[in-house]
C-alpha cells in the first residue's frame, strides 16, 4: 500500500526537479543542434538557453520562467494499491502543485478562463491535470511531472479532420504547415519536440500528440517501421525549411518528431499536432510498494 504522503511528496519533488533541470536527452539534442547551426544568431539562441539551464541547475532560477501547465502522467500496475484509493492521486497532485508554487518553483499561471481570476497556486477545476493509465502487473507507481510551457501549448496545437482520400500527402501537408506557422518568430520556442497523433477519436488523437511530444525520449523512433519512416521523412523536411532556433535562420526547427497512431473510423483520418518547447521539461519518479521513491531524467 503506497501512502498518500509518499505520493504527495514524490509529486512535489518530481515537479520541482522538472522546473530546475534539463532532461539529459534534451540537453544532448540541443548540443547536437548547436554543432550543426552556422548562423551566429541561431547559435547564440542555443548557447544562451543552455547557459540559462546551467544557472537553474545551480540553484539560480528556473529552466524557464513560464512554468506553464502543471501536468502529471501516472502509470500504475495491476497490483498497485494506493492509500485511500486512486482518487487520492488528484488530491495529492493538487497539494503538491500548490506547495511547489508557494515555494516559487512554479509561477502562479493557471487562471479561470472566463473571469481570468488567479487562484494563486495553480490549483482549480481540471488543474493540475492527472492522466492515469494502467500497464503491466507491477505494484508501484510511475509519476512523470511536466510543467508544460505556454508558448509550445498555445502556438503549437493543431487539429484537423482529414479523410481517407487525403492519405499520407494530406498528413504531411498538415504537419508541415503547422510547424511552419508554429515556428514563426520563435512562437513555440524551437527547436521543438513535435508530437503527432494520427487516428483515434478527437480527444485520443490530441492526447497521442501530447504524449508523443512530452513522454518519448527525443528522437526515439516509433517501433512500427511504417510510422518510423513517416517520422524520418517529416523531420528531414523540416530541416529544409530554413527555420532554426527561436525562429532564426537555421536547420533545427525541430529536435525530434514523434508520431503515435490509433485505430480510427473507416470514414476518418484525424491528425493532431502538439509541440513541446526546446527545454522539454519533465522528470520521472518511481514509487515502490513500500513508498520508497527514486527519480530519473532518462526515460529510455
Amino acid at each position: 500500500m503506497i501512502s498518500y504522503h509518499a505520493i504527495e511528496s514524490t509529486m512535489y519533488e518530481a515537479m520541482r526537479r522538472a522546473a530546475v533541470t534539463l532532461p539529459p536527452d534534451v540537453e544532448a539534442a540541443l548540443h547536437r543542434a548547436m554543432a550543426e547551426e552556422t548562423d551566429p544568431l541561431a547559435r547564440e539562441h542555443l548557447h544562451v538557453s543552455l547557459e540559462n539551464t546551467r544557472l537553474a541547475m545551480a540553484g539560480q532560477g528556473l529552466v524557464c520562467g513560464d512554468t506553464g501547465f502543471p501536468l502529471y502522467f501516472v502509470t500504475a500496475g495491476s497490483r498497485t494499491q494506493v492509500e485511500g484509493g486512486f482518487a487520492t492521486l488528484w488530491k495529492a497532485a493538487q497539494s503538491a502543485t500548490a506547495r511547489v508554487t508557494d515555494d516559487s518553483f512554479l509561477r502562479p499561471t493557471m487562471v479561470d478562463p472566463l473571469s481570468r481570476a488567479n487562484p494563486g497556486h495553480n490549483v482549480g477545476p481540471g488543474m493540475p491535470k492527472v492522466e492515469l493509465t494502467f500497464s503491466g502487473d507491477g505494484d508501484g507507481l510511475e509519476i512523470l511531472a511536466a510543467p508544460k510551457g505556454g508558448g509550445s501549448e498555445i502556438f503549437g496545437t493543431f487539429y484537423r479532420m482529414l479523410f481517407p482520400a487525403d492519405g499520407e500527402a494530406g498528413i504531411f501537408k498538415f504537419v508541415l504547415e503547422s510547424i511552419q506557422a508554429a515556428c514563426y518568430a520563435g512562437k513555440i520556442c524551437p527547436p521543438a519536440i513535435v508530437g503527432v497523433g494520427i487516428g483515434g477519436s478527437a480527444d485520443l488523437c490530441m492526447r497521442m500528440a501530447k504524449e508523443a511530444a512530452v513522454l518519448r525520449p527525443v528522437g526515439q523512433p516509433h517501433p512500427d517501421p511504417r510510422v518510423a519512416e513517416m517520422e524520418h521523412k517529416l523531420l528531414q523536411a523540416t530541416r529544409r525549411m530554413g527555420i532554426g532556433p527561436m525562429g532564426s535562420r537555421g536547420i533545427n526547427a525541430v529536435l525530434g518528431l514523434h508520431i503515435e497512431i490509433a485505430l480510427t473510423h473507416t470514414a476518418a483520418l484525424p491528425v493532431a499536432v502538439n509541440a513541446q518547447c526546446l527545454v522539454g521539461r519533465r522528470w520521472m519518479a518511481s514509487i515502490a510498494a513500500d513508498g520508497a521513491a527514486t527519480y530519473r531524467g532518462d526515460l529510455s
Partner: protein
Amino acid sequence: MSDAIRHLQLPLSAEEARSLTLGDRVTVSGPIFTGRSRFHIRAIEQNIVPPLDFQAINCFFHVGPVMRRQDERWEIVSIEPTSSIRFDRYSGDVIRKLRLRTLIGKTTMGPAAAEALREVGGVYLTKIGVCGNQLRPQVKKVHGVYFLEELGKTEATWVFEVEQFGPFFVAMDAHGNNYFQQLSADVASRMGAIYRDLGIPDDYGWTNVDATRKPGDPA
C-alpha cells in the same frame, strides 16, 4: 547586423530609436515597467493604466516574472520575456497611447504595432534564447508593483530599475521593418520544393466537405 552590442540609456529618444537597425544587439539601462494581456485589455477597453510617468518610465517589458517575497522585499526568481504577438489586438493603440519608444518581449508584433512604432519613433526588442535567469541579476531594484491584488503576481505591473539589461536584438525598427518578415518569405519560398519531394503537388487541397461551396470555389 553588427556583432558589437550597443548599450542604450532609457528612456530612449525617438532619434536614438530611429538610428537602430534590424538585428542590432542592444542592452538597455534605466527604468522599465511590465505587463501582459490584462495590461493591454484594461489600458484600451477600460482606460486603466498604472499611475506612472510614461515619458520617464517608457520601456514596456512583456513579461510575467516569477516573484518571491523575502524578508518584506520582493525578489526575482526568473524573468522570461513572454510572446508579444498575443497582444496584437491592442499593441498599436498602447504604443500610441503611452508614446512608447522601447518594447521588449518574445516573438514579434504585427503590422499595426509596426505602424505605431514608425509614428512614435520606437523599436521592438526580442529575446535571445531562454534567458530569464541571466536577466535576473541585471534588475538592480524593484521600484514597485501595481494592481497586485486584482491581477496577481504574473499579470501585475512591476516597475524595475535595470542595468545593461539584455542583450536583446532589434526585431522591429522605427521605420516599419520587421526582422521576421523577410525570413518568413524565404521559408515560404522553400515550401513548394519540400512538398513536391514528398509527392504533394502544388495545387494539393484537402477533401472539402463544405456542402455550401459553389462549383469553382477553391478546395
